[in-house]
């Protein structure tokens, strides 16, 4: 079938690349950051993701998408993978893959849910659970680029132990001027926390976010129900729907 060529041709063909695991660290008992070396990696923007492909000895293969956790850094690409009980790919990546092993990866993918360091607008990041990963890439990119854009992060997790990057976020909230971080816990709070565990609500977005008048760029990432609820709150508070970008992790994701 003849088709008109799409103009622009911005993205070159996305080829599968060999990615060698060079280091890993556990973020929580069920989440691990995997750092790969990917020769000829073309670079990426914070917020983008990659496709990962695993192939069995009989040729069967399957693919999943994972957000990149770090800004562009040469040939290094870091993913943080949440273990999905009885999942097909995440148990292999977390429990079997060892330093030196090679998997296949292609990307970067997604040109919508991205933050560009030249953009001076205030930024509101709202993450639920593993939805913190692409938001963390933006926070790290902000520092790496020396951006002065004002950032606020609201991070919802089930318990304090379920937070990814907990130490780094604590340090950055102290040292990265212009970055505020607030937390919401849905199942268990830290000791001495002033509020009981609860879902993120209007007050959290009001207190931890920016007024709509500031016209912040809003990035919301997490499980579908979380993103639906947060996006509705942002709209109800008067944020322009065009400035609310979302990334939903389906219940069967990962």
């Amino acid at each position, binding site marked *: 079938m003849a088709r008109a060529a799409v103009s622009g041709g911005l993205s070159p063909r996305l080829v599968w690349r*060999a990615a060698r695991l060079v280091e890993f660290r556990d973020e929580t008992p069920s989440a691990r950051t995997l750092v790969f070396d990917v020769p000829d990696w073309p670079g990426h923007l914070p917020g983008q993701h990659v496709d990962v492909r695993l192939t*069995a000895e009989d040729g069967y*293969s399957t693919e999943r998408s994972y957000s990149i956790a770090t800004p562009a850094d040469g040939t290094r690409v870091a993913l943080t993978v949440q273990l999905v009980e009885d999942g097909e790919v995440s148990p292999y990546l977390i429990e079997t893959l060892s330093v030196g092993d090679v*998997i*296949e990866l292609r990307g970067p993918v997604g040109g919508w849910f991205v933050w560009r360091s030249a953009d001076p607008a205030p930024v509101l990041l709202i993450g639920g659970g593993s939805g913190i990963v692409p938001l963390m890439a933006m926070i790290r990119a902000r520092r790496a680029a020396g951006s002065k854009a004002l950032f606020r992060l609201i991070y919802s997790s089930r318990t304090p132990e379920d937070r990814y990057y907990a130490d780094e976020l604590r340090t950055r909230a102290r040292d990265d001027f212009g970055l505020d971080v607030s937390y919401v816990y849905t199942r268990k709070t830290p000791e001495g926390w002033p509020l009981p565990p609860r879902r993120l609500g209007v007050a959290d977005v009001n207190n931890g976010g920016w007024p709509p008048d500031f016209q912040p760029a809003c990035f919301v990432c997490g499980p579908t129900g979380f993103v639906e609820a947060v996006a509705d709150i*942002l709209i109800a508070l008067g944020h322009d729907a065009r400035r609310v970008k979302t990334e939903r992790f389906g219940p*069967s994701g990962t």
Partner: protein
Amino acid sequence: MGGIVSPGFRGRRGPEGGEVTLPPGQYLTEDFPVLTAGPTLRVPTDTWEFVIVTEAGEKHRWDWKQLMALPSERPTVDLHCVTKWSKLHTDWQGVSLDVLFEGVDTAADYALVHSYGGYTTNLPFEDLRNGQAWIVYRFDGEDLTPEHGGPARLLVPHLYLWKSAKWVRGITLSDEDTPGFWESAGYHDYGDPWREQRYQGD
């Protein structure tokens, strides 16, 4: 292309004893995940309309009542999302685009689908005809929820699901192909799951 083998990776081969064949790179889900670039839209049916604009600028318009009065079909189809999940045997109700195009005089090659909220997606006009596409308003016997594109969405199940625009409001026919929202962001112009056309160049 043969992939690099991951020693010890076996993978899951679908339901036990099942002979389910999925497009390459897809896995089966029983859930109905949501993929949307922004907030969910709530479009009231009393102001809803669907407009087809031909390459000559001729407009054909339906309001919600008129859509409901048209003969509907109950397609049972498989869905394939570019984010890798496939969901089989989904049950929809809606109006075939063949019905809507009946009185439309056109020789256009391309269609650009528009949604409330500004989303667009493009596809060849022929992919919307001959029993391949519907404007659907019920899923599993229930009114289609806003999360899944209600009150009405396009359903073009032979292409990746981003072509099945949620909150659909119209189709513009043209002699030229204009990339839509995801197509401009690097996704494939056509999006055939069986040829794994996820991204430009696939």
